[in-house]
């Protein structure tokens, strides 16, 4: 359970994390980094960045934390609340999205707080030969 004054850094774990915020009225997003897109012959894009944003969460008791996975050159989708796209013909994957969602377990209401979007994947060398 999160307590007043706690500062916590959440890193990629491969699954959604939850935090009990029953005792919390406000969160400060000190820093929220979106995941990188996968590199191939060219670099994947960097993720979006949010710093020092605040949100009133007094009406909610659970915080959903989705930390996106960086893209690689792979045939699977990257993890995130929304998954990144798969690279075709060897191109880099897009990264998965990094997002925060507040939920009230009594009413079932959920509220989107913020997202740092993921970068797109880099192209393979062959794409430039077209």
């Amino acid at each position, binding site marked *: 359970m999160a307590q007043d004054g706690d500062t916590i*850094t959440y890193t990629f774990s491969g699954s959604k994390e939850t935090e009990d915020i029953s005792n919390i009225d406000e969160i400060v997003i000190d820093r929220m980094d*979106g995941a*990188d897109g996968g590199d191939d012959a060219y670099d994947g894009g960097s993720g979006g960045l949010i*710093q020092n944003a605040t949100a009133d969460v007094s009406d909610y008791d659970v915080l959903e934390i989705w930390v996106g996975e*960086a893209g690689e050159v792979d045939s699977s989708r990257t993890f995130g609340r929304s998954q990144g796209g798969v690279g075709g013909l060897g191109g880099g994957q897009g*990264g998965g999205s990094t997002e925060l969602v507040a939920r009230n377990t009594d009413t079932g209401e959920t509220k989107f707080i*913020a997202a740092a979007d993921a970068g*797109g994947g880099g*192209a393979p060398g062959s794409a430039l030969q077209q």
Partner: protein
Amino acid sequence: MAGGGARGGEGSSGDDSDAEGTGFGGDAISSNGEPGGQELGIASGGTTTTGGSSQGDGEITITYKASSTTSGEPPKAPSSLSVELG
């Protein structure tokens, strides 16, 4: 071709576009992939830019506050104090 970054909808696979319109993940264009954007829902203030993680997974740092610390600064102590004795 490369995959699009994600936000809200899944990134497109095997083509160069993201899943949907503005505010979503960066496109994968025919060279370097585009950077992802940002979106604020009930959050406000602060700064939103590109330049998040360029070499890895996402990351979030959050500070939690209860009402005792969200109502503003505590009252300041008086700079001087005098007491009259009867």
